[in-house]
């Protein structure tokens, strides 16, 4: 093993020299390949930012949602809350402007608003519901009156308006949906076709594009189409996933309408639903790419500050950009579809590429200062750093490949692309950087006399002595810290609350807080019930079970469930109206015939509305729960409990409906399922990555001892971040979990450089103190540089409006500095204390030398 390592070191020493005579062809090849990959990136790149893309084809949660949507329509719309300046949604002004807003949206929706609106995303609105057109049903003696609240006749005088207010108050389904209890807020529901557009583009209507209208039909009627035919194939419609930019376009168009003076002068608007959330996410992503740019600028600044040479700035950046283009370009050529995690890939490549280059540059400068000429210094720098760079590349790639165990396609893609990028950075550092340095290098002779970074070395030099004096104290202090963080780790909660990941006072937070407080909440959960038999939902026992379950859920979770609605509400309401509005009859009748007849009216409503609540054969229906915002932790608990309660309450009916299927679903459930799944996947791949990295470290460092010792400072940063979050009560969200391997990757890099250097020095001198001194002197600087660059770089993320990213910035940057401190203090202290041999005896035996006694 050791001779292999020597040969590898020798290889790295020689490698840069081999290509120098061919420097122009190498450069040309690099730029040509980068060009090809860039072309691939520009021409083939495809991005799928839909929630659905996070699920494997046929994943049960997604299948349930697809089934739900196929049956009951899209649950993905926009709920618009408006607050009139005069504080009353029933004032003359408010009603008139609401009517005008309805008209504005309705005209655009129907394509009547003029040419400029023909392609408007608002044409995707399928229905607009508010106080204006809400249809009420009241009984006056034996007369049933069903009218639109305002649209039928705009009330002119105050008493008329008060009469409408009284009607609205009497309609169970209006309150909290269309008006707040104090009438200061109103709600407008926009039902859209989001997630309901057939995949594969819009199918050509058979009369479009110069059709022959006299041609035969594609669908033939047999003699009796009503004859049930086995094996007849039903065409299942596949729906296209919603992309984030579709939501953004929709919101832009919607805001353009609500911001017209005639509306914004009187109303203040609040938007909830997936579309505004995605709009916020897009805004965050745009901001994140700005921050990423700032991060690059900081990296540039620090590189300049630390190396005082333009070449030390331009070459690393060229290589990092090259690696990123190679990785993303290659994957694009292979037809890979990316997610928004592609920005993380870039961050990882940036981190790893910087570390690779800084180690080489730092080594090069070190050897130049020691008096070696340019080419010799380069050979020595690669000899020292080549193997650790290879090791860090292999371990980081292994960590990234560990992510492919995830059954979440997007995380797998992220893993493989990032691994490719890391490999690219390695190849370029090894073969292209030498050529670049040969053309233009950072070292200046005058630096030799007066190195400008003299501030760092004096700080690093006393460390070996300090560590030598009290290694146990340092280890004990770190152990205590470890213990404390372990305690913190036990407190950590995996909880993603999208709204709470926005800043205090942000539009998103204000809106959701308001909608939760005064309206019916901005989230929704669906309980899908398939009883497997026609007319099941006309059975009074089934309807009574629905009603009881709703009552239970509303009573049990008053803080979370604002309102619930099902077919049972419709039947109970109709029963009351049919009995002269006597409230005693607001219940499900026991008589099956009467129930069926009450549903007769519902049956005759328009089929699109009916299908939103119950299937045509009355075998499938659902309960909609309007939920207030909460975190995934609470939602998951509620979902689990509600599912159990649903099973329990429907159990007595199972004898009559043996094919019964009960499932919670909806976009929110899908999201919760995803968050839960990501958490577990990340924990799994994180453990797998740690295990893989440990094994690789043991193998590559040639000693179990070395491998295990170097894992200690590798674990500490993760323990530190997560433990601290636990102690501070900051929940661990999915974003942080996704980024965790990235941080570990950075921490591992430094440790590997440190241990590899130390082992070389230790083999050479057999003196721990001297070996540590040499290591800290040579590697300490590079390790500190990379940590400074990346640590400071990460802090930029603190400025993100999205706290998921800001948290990553704070805790990620802290983790990087903790990794640095453990490499500089804990690792040397552990070495001083445990005095590991790291296989030196075997090495010397193989060389035929006796191992001298260890000198402390």
């Amino acid at each position, binding site marked *: 093993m050791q001779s292999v390592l020597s040969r590898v070191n020798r290889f790295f020493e020689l490698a840069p020299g081999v290509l120098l005579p061919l420097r122009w062809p190498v450069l040309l090849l690099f730029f040509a390949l980068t060009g090809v990959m860039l072309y691939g990136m520009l021409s083939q790149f495809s991005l799928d930012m839909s929630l659905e893309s996070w699920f494997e084809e046929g994943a049960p949660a997604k299948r349930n949602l697809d089934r739900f949507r196929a049956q009951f329509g899209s649950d993905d719309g926009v709920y618009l809350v408006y607050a009139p300046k005069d504080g009353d949604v029933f004032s003359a002004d408010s009603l008139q402007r609401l009517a005008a807003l309805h008209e504005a949206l*309705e005209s655009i*929706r*129907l*394509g009547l608003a003029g040419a400029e609106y023909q392609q408007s995303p608002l044409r995707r609105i*399928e229905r607009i519901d508010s106080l204006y057109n809400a249809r009420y049903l009241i009984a006056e003696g*034996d*007369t*049933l*009156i*069903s*009218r*639109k609240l305002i*649209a*039928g006749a705009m009330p002119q005088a105050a008493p008329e308006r008060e009469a409408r207010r009284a009607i609205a108050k009497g309609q169970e389904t209006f309150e909290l949906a269309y008006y707040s209890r104090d009438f200061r807020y109103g709600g407008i529901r926009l039902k859209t*076709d989001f997630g309901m557009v057939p995949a594969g583009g*819009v*199918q050509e*209507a058979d*009369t*479009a594009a110069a059709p022959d*209208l*006299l041609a*035969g*039909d*594609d*669908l*033939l*009627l*047999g003699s009796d*189409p*009503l*004859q*049930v*035919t086995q*094996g*007849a*194939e*039903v*065409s299942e*419609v596949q729906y296209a996933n919603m992309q984030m930019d579709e939501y953004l376009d929709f919101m832009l168009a919607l805001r353009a309408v609500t911001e017209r003076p005639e509306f914004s002068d009187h109303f203040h608007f609040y938007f909830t639903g997936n579309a505004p959330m995605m709009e916020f996410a897009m805004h965050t992503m745009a901001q994140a790419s700005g921050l990423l740019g700032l991060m690059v600028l900081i990296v540039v600044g620090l590189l300049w500050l630390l190396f005082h040479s333009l070449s030390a700035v331009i070459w690393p950046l060229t290589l990092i950009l090259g690696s990123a283009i190679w990785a993303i370009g290659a994957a694009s050529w292979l037809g890979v579809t990316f997610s928004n995690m592609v920005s993380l890939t870039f961050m990882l490549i940036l981190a790893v590429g910087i570390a690779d280059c800084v180690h080489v540059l730092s080594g090069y400068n070190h050897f130049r200062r020691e008096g070696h000429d340019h080419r010799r210094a380069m050979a020595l720098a690669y000899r020292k750093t080549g193997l650790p760079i290879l090791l860090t590349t292999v371990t980081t790639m292994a960590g990234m490949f560990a992510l492919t165990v995830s059954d979440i396609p997007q995380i797998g893609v992220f893993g493989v692309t990032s691994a490719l990028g890391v490999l690219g950075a390695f190849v370029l550092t090894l073969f292209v950087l030498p050529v670049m340095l040969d053309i233009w290098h950072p070292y200046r002779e005058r630096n030799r006399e007066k190195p400008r970074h003299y501030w760092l070395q004096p700080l690093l030099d006393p460390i070996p002595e300090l560590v030598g004096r009290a290694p146990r104290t340092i280890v004990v202090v770190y152990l205590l810290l470890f213990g404390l963080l372990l305690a913190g780790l036990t407190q950590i909660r995996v909880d993603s609350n999208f709204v709470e990941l926005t800043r205090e006072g942000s539009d998103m937070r204000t809106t959701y807080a308001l909608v939760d407080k005064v309206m019916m909440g901005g989230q929704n959960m669906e309980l899908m019930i398939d009883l497997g038999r*026609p007319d099941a939902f*006309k059975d009074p026992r089934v309807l009574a079970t629905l009603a009881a379950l709703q009552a239970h859920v509303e009573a049990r979770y008053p803080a979370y469930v604002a309102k619930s609605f099902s077919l049972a509400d419709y039947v109970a309401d109709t029963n009351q109206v*049919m009995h002269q509005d006597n409230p005693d009859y607001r219940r499900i009748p026991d*008589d*099956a*015939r*009467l129930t*069926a*007849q009450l549903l*007769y009216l519902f*049956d*005759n*409503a*328009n*089929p*699109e509305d*009916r*299908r939103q609540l119950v299937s*045509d*054969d009355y075998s499938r229906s659902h309960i909609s729960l309007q939920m207030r915002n909460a975190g995934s932790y609470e939602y998951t608990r509620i979902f689990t409990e509600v599912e159990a309660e649903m099973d329990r309450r429907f159990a007595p009916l199972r004898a009559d409906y043996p094919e019964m299927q009960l499932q919670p679903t909806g976009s929110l459930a899908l999201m919760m399922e995803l968050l839960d799944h990501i958490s577990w996947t990340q924990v799994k791949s994180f453990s797998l990555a740690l295990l893989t990295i440990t094994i690789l470290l043991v193998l590559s460092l040639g000693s179990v001892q070395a491998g295990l010792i170097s894992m200690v400072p590798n674990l500490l940063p993760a323990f530190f971040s997560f433990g601290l979050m636990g102690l501070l009560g900051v929940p661990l969200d999915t974003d942080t979990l996704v980024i965790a391997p990235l941080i570990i990757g950075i921490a591992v890099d430094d440790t590997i450089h440190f241990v590899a250097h130390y082992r070389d020095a230790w083999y050479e001198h057999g003196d721990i103190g001297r070996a540590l001194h040499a290591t800290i002197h040579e590697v300490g600087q590079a390790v500190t540089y990379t940590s400074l660059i990346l640590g400071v770089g990460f802090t930029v993320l603190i400025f993100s409006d999205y706290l998921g990213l800001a948290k990553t910035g704070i805790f990620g940057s802290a983790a990087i500095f903790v990794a640095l401190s453990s490499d500089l203090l804990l690792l040397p202290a552990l070495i001083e204390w445990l005095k590991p041999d790291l296989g030196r005896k075997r090495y010397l035996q193989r060389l035929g030398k006796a191992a001298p006694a260890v000198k402390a």
Partner: protein
Amino acid sequence: MMKAHTLWSLLLLIPALACASEDARTIMEKVDAQQRAVADGTLTRSQLSSCKFGLKDKAVACVEEPRVKRMESTSRQLGADKKDSQSIAILLEPASERGIGMLTYTYADESKETESWLYLSALGRVKRMVSGAAEDQEPVSLFGSEFSTEDMENGKTDEYRYQILQEGDYDGTQVWVIEGLPNEARLRKSRYSKIYFWIDKARYVPLKVQAYDKRGQLFKRILFRDIQQLDGLWLARDLTLLNVQTSRLSTMRTEAIALHVTLDDDFLTQRTLTDFAYRERELERLRAQFQ
């Protein structure tokens, strides 16, 4: 709420002399005007069946047991242009809905509210239904089937712009293919963005109607079959509606029909909903005229 009465009028089409120079509007108005004249005094027993459909060897077939409703209905046209109407429909099947009755008066004058009365046999009581004037109306389903009141309306030709798209041989019959584009008022309450009609030139019978949704996608296709001549009038006794977006179909079969019957003055009133003996006596008399 119910506009079942208008349903029958669409089945009844008066033949007229085909004239090559006729424009689309004239054709459609002729069809419509004659429909209204014909709907004046009709008793029908019909069956509405609905199911999810699939395809086998390109032929449409139910993949589940169809849901069947049977009913008897009577209608007459009133007013100067015979544009007002009165109708009554009584359900015979399914058993749970047997006896439900619906009486409806509609008026050509848009400012006049549609009047309807509902009788639920399980409650034994008539309820007057007030659901607003035309502006406030939305198309609703016909007895829970894929047919909507909009598919069955007549007297609304003013609300469309018509043009002939093509003419020639369609499945062995000479037809005009006419496009109907709704005006703004109609578009606002309609579920369709346009309608295509395949009109038999000789008999003035639609052979096929296609309705398109607001995105311009094919939504429903209605096929008219079993076209017969009764009392000199052409009518289709078998309508099949394919909702191609939901893969559901509904058929409407006229089991028995009597045209131009004389109705008792009281028959199209609330009395028929509640007075079982009177209703049966009158119906028996009318049924004797089934053709």
